[in-house]
């Protein structure tokens, strides 16, 4: 079925068109919206896009990193300043998908996709969105909780603070096929350490609930402690708390609950 494609020079005009039409979807890299059109999704009658250069900008020079929503995973991988995001970017798709798929689109990718967003959730990213009434910043957790309602908002960029060290940010994706494949589960952990003790831990899980979620009980088990075997074991045993995984072709809900603690323990103990 043919749809109407509206192309705008500026992101704000695109945002206006998006917010005023419930059947409009924003087209980023195409890996979600074109797929929906190919599958005959009749809920989409308008496709909105913009050629605004601001959406493809990367600002990675300082401690605060900002990625335009239209930045592709291939560009993340090509940027040395973004080394801390290379593992999640590399875990997505094959080369063609990484040349097309974008950071902004990944925020909307349903299970078993959305791995980059797991990393961003652990990093406490901020999502800048433009609605009908100007732009605003939303904490990523709040954005994800209301994701069903976000179809009418245009994501402009995501930003996060660079982790203090490569040890402080860890990522692990479990897939059936290597080096690509949908996620059985995905884990990311930001573990800032102060005086030998974890301070402000954030653990994010993918494919363990309808959207990416934080493992708050596991975070609490780490807080104020050193990353020793007992602490890691306590966090791992709390990993399923608050999760709501479901069955799909890649794994059952039961299997996901069984393995999430195992992989969290390996992630926290630095095992491959």
């Amino acid at each position: 079925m043919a749809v109407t494609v509206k192309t705008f020079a500026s992101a704000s005009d695109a945002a206006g068109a998006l917010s005023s039409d419930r059947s409009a979807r924003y087209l980023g890299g195409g890996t979600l919206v074109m797929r929906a059109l190919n599958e005959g999704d009749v809920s989409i009658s308008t496709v909105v896009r913009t050629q605004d250069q601001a959406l493809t900008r990367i600002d990675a020079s300082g401690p605060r990193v900002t990625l335009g929503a239209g930045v592709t995973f291939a560009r993340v991988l090509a940027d040395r300043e973004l080394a801390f995001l290379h593992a999640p970017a590399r875990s997505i798709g094959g080369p063609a998908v990484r040349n097309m798929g974008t950071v902004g689109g990944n925020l909307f990718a349903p299970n078993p996709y959305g791995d980059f967003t797991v990393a961003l959730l652990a990093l406490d990213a901020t999502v800048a969105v433009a609605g009908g009434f100007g732009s605003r910043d939303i904490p990523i957790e709040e954005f994800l909780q209301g994701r069903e309602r976000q179809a009418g908002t245009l994501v402009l960029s995501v930003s996060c603070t660079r982790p203090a060290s490569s040890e402080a940010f860890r990522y692990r994706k479990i897939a059936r096929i290597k080096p690509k494949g949908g996620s059985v589960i995905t884990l990311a952990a930001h573990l800032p350490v102060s005086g030998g003790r974890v301070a402000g831990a954030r653990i994010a899980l993918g494919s363990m609930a309808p959207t990416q979620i934080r493992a708050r009980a596991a975070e609490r088990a780490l807080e104020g402690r050193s990353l020793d075997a007992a602490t890691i074991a306590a966090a791992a045993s709390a990993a399923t708390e608050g999760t709501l995984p479901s069955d799909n072709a890649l794994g059952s809900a039961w299997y996901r609950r069984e393995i999430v603690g195992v992989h969290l323990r390996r992630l926290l103990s630095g095992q491959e």
Partner: protein
Amino acid sequence: MTKIPLQFRHNGRNVAIFVDGGTNLLVALRELIGDMTPKFGCGQGGCGTCSVLVDGELHLSCLTLAETVAGRSVETLDGMKQGPNLHPLQRAFADNFAAQCGYCTPGMLMAAKALLDRNPAPSRTDVIEAISGNICRCTGYEPIINAILAAAGGRASA
């Protein structure tokens, strides 16, 4: 529904077509231009057989909105052979039995070309990574990997 005029370079030749809103590049290439080399596999970005190069970069044509390639260069398998001669990659695929049913072959060749254009001396790991978005259900991948390595410099047994 009004048609949208679209011009781009197709294997080095300028083409001008009219597309419906929402038409993907694969449909534009096959049904409007008549280039049947990119194949329709899954329509979801999972199989890679529709792979083409857009400005030298590997893209999935089934997930590419046709009008986004306006003014850009699109290369397909149809443009790979040089006159009557097969491209070295095509020759290597034939010599190494890398094509069986042949359905994945156009995408495999484009993914391989995207790799060798950037990295003329890839490692086996580089090759595996480069074709990781392309599914083959016949060969078990080994002959394809060997063919790409052979095309890159006679290291098929590596």
